[in-house]
């Protein structure tokens, strides 16, 4: 009678540990995915600025340029569709505000894009617009470098945590 009770408790404990390990594993995996998405999206925004810099020379309005823009990571999260659907004059700022939850970028990066959106609409010549794109491209590049450096170590830790969780389960069952 006592043996069967202690066997049941052992089993419950193992299931509990298994659940915790699984939670840690999936949390680690989700974190890795988020960091990967963040880097891809930040690269997407940098590509957007490069795209604008090239196309501004034709003096095409921003909203028409946004309609032509496409990037895999920003398409996947639905941001480009949101950007194209904006009717306000400051389409990029509106899309960033309305679609903030779809994006994995951090607040500093987002603030930099909002500043860019404010400035690019007000420039009075295509040349000034291209200079504005270049200036913000450099700022975004710096931030992407920081993200990349931090993300590498964080991703490593998260991956290791996942592996440790798996090993922990194996040891527990052996």
């Amino acid at each position, binding site marked *: 009678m006592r043996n069967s009770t202690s066997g049941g408790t052992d089993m419950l404990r193992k299931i509990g540990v298994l659940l915790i390990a699984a939670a840690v594993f999936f949390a680690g995996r989700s974190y890795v995915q988020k960091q990967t998405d963040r880097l891809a999206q930040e690269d997407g925004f940098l590509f957007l600025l490069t795209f604008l810099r090239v196309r*501004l020379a034709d*003096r*095409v*309005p*921003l*909203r028409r340029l946004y309609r032509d823009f496409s990037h895999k990571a920003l398409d996947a999260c639905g941001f480009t569709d949101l950007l194209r659907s904006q009717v*306000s*004059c*400051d*389409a990029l700022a509106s899309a960033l505000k309305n679609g903030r939850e779809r994006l994995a970028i951090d607040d500093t990066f987002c603030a930099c894009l909002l500043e860019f959106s404010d400035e690019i*609409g*007000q*420039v*009075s*010549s*295509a040349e*000034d*617009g291209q200079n504005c794109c270049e200036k913000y491209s450099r700022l975004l590049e710096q931030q992407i470098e920081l993200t990349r450096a931090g993300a590498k170590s964080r991703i490593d830790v998260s991956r290791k945590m996942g592996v440790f969780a798996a090993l922990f389960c194996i040891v527990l069952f052996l």
Partner: protein
Amino acid sequence: MYIANSAVKKELLACLPESVGTALLRRENAALVSKASELRLRKDRYQSLTVGQTNYVLSADGTFCENVYAPLRLTEEELRECVFRLCDGSIYAHEENLKKGFLVKNGIRVGIGGKCILKNGQPFGFCEYDSLNFRFPHHIPNAAAPILAHIAKNGLPDVGGILIFSPPNIGKTTFLRALCSALSRSFEDGGHRRSVRVCVLDEREEIYLPEAFPDGFSDFLFSCPKSYGIELATRVLSPDILACDEIGNGDEANAICRAASGGILFIATCHAASFEELYRKCETAQLLKSGVFRTLCRLYIENGRHDCEIRRAEEPICCERSAFC
């Protein structure tokens, strides 16, 4: 504000400061607004609507009156926001027009007053906005009836090139638009009905209106400098008639002379108050001397009624700047 297309009207109202947009939509202002030719927005001064030759001031309570005690005042920030919206959030896209001091939104020309930015001594744009002048285009299909009757009687080859002139704000562009529309669609030419290929050089995008050119043999060159556009149109569009608004400098006059020697008829407008003034102005005197324009059409308003006086061009008597001639 005569705008046939309600979508265009809606889009324009969305660009205006809210207080002005609301006033234009008020029922008690509807009669004035429907006849207005201009809306002027000014920083810290009167906002006004021009109907005929009368200016009506917008009061703070949203009504338009000739004499007002509490006028509505706008800030520079509101004018700046209005320009930003007129440019659809991309001021650089209107760079070329801003250099010349205006914007075009759906066929409505918006003249800009303010502090200019200079680059290498040339105007480049505006850093402060002081006033905005919205000129609402009108399509009056029978505006050119007198000259069309003249063509019907004498035939287009005899009438030759037509130079339309008047002081500002009398209706030259409206007259030109109606004439081009009729010639490209159907007109009576010395006894028989026909239509001709008309190429319109619409440098400031204010001649073309969809309701004026729903069909017909018209081609348009938009935002193209006239002197360049005349050569371009002659080479690639082979029109029977080339039409352009507000000719005024030597380059344009030279380009017209060159193209006219190739057999193209010209219809153009220019600023002048009288026939004498027209003959005195160097560029127009040169064109009249070369025979490009054989018919002159003076537009004027008398007793509130638009009218025109048609004359055969004579040899010019003198010229202000002999260097050009």
